[in-house]
């Protein structure tokens, strides 16, 4: 079996996406959820890079990766701010404890 570097990139992307999805579904800690989201995003970036190499549109892939990195960073920042606020008011990072919140 002869794998090209692009195939390796795609395989790593799929494994990272699977790992991030598994973390998102199973983890209850708010900061760990963001760690899982980061891993999922890294897999997505590698998948876009592999798609760019497959199609020969590396410039387009780079532009999309830049946008994805910016969006992911902002989402992570907002999530961290929210997690810290939750900890300051409830004293916990556990997702299950947030079910008791009433608006």
């Amino acid at each position: 079996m002869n794998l090209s570097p692009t195939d390796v990139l795609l395989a790593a992307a799929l494994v990272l996406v699977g790992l991030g999805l598994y973390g998102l579904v199973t983890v209850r800690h708010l900061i760990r959820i963001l760690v899982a989201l980061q891993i999922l995003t890294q897999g997505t970036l590698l998948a876009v890079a592999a798609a760019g190499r497959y199609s020969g549109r590396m410039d387009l892939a780079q532009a999309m990766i830049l946008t994805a990195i910016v969006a992911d960073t902002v989402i992570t920042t907002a999530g961290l701010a929210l997690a810290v606020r939750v900890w300051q008011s409830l004293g916990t990072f556990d997702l299950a404890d947030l079910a008791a919140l009433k608006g």
Partner: protein
Amino acid sequence: MATVILAVGALLCAIQAMRVQRLLPAALWLAAASAFTAMLLYAAGLHEAAVVELSVGSGLVFILLIYAISLSGDARRQGAPIVPRSAALVLVGLALLLVGMFVWPTPVDLGRVSAGLLSTSLWMDRQLDVVVQIVLIFSGALTIAGLLARPKAAAPANEVEGAAINPSEPTLVTPSDTSTRLPAPADQVAGCDGVKP
């Protein structure tokens, strides 16, 4: 061969980031996984994206994680997962199968590199992306300002427990200040002994 080594390194670091109990080592493993991802992008020929991933993904996000951990403490993993692990594995397997069905017809590696420049593609063809990035960066900066803002100081205990409470002003209860109580409802404050006037 180098791509395989980098990919294995990224996967091992990502697995460790999910496995370790404490948050600080998890953040360190995540930064290492992000650095390996940046090296993979560089090896794939996406040099500008690799630099941004290394500086933003591995640098800025790591610093933000460390800052959040320093504010809140390095808590260990808590409780059992809400979704059972077996069900989660089935869900992830189904998702990957779905993605694989989309990806499977793709692998026809053209083996050529586009002659287009990133600057041309980003500033000419993807102008909406640039606008979205600007808006996102501004909102991110505002979010960081919210994260860094100190919470309003809690009122002194005698003022909170006495009758001079203004119910319209919310009181922030922090875990380190267990003596602070939430303001009583307005009807109880007015009666002082829980008796309605």
